[in-house]
């Protein structure tokens, strides 16, 4: 299981146990920000590979 999947699973579990609307909303949004972070990290890894490849190849 990837770290993101683990995190999403934990958050969903807490959301399913939430007893107030505010808590449900919070965990819904927390799942989204966690996903956003994971996506940004993947994007930066691509940027990193592209940038370091450019440096090595000199173009």
């Amino acid at each position: 299981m990837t770290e993101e999947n683990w995190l999403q699973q934990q958050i969903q579990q807490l959301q399913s146990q939430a007893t107030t609307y505010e808590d449900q909303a919070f965990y819904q949004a927390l799942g989204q920000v966690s996903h956003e972070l994971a996506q940004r990290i993947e994007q930066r890894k691509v940027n990193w590979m592209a940038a370091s490849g450019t440096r090595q190849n000199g173009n």
Partner: protein
Amino acid sequence: MKTLVIVSHPEIENSMVQNFLKASCAGLEEVTWHVLPSILDVAFEQAQLKTHDRIILQFPLYWYAAPASLKNWLDTVLTGDFAFNGSQPLAGKEFGLVVSTGIAAKHFQAGGSEQATMSEILRPYELVARKLGMTYLTPFVIHQLGYWSETAKQLLVVDYQRYLSQQNFTLTDKVAWFQAQLAQRQAVAEDEAQQQQLVLIGEQLAEQSELLTDLNWQVQMIRQEEGEG
């Protein structure tokens, strides 16, 4: 940071949007919810502005402007003597707008049926903020809340809370805001397993955030070296 939400609405009891937003921020300790009364106590209004750091004007859009009570408030409270002739008591504070409209977002763009963007329509408020030496925040606009899905409404609750209480609006600050909320929930959680779960989630978020910062830095360094080369 203390936030003052100044709400202008002629029939606030019947407003679905305002009631939704009021409930959304009920748990925020540093937020003052202030509905404009029909008769203003100018000294009180001015004192409130001085004691808060982020001032939010919140209203439904009527004929491309705020309801009359907010215009009256602007004219009566933000007098030259108080706000900008001589000392500037509001300088350095933040100025935000929460605006609701019954028209879909797609109509507020060049070529759209409204023929204007929200930034253009709300420009007078940006000028007010500038005149007062305040930092103008990106407006928080809610289009047609009645048509939103339950999930979208839940996300709106938190986006609104963040607009009122998050220090800055970078991703790092967003993560920090969620971590603070997790810590609050952890402090009141009765179940030990749940407490542990909240700690682990907070730690995982912190790790991800650090990794992203590190990657950003590395990419920036590589590009900088290229520029120097």
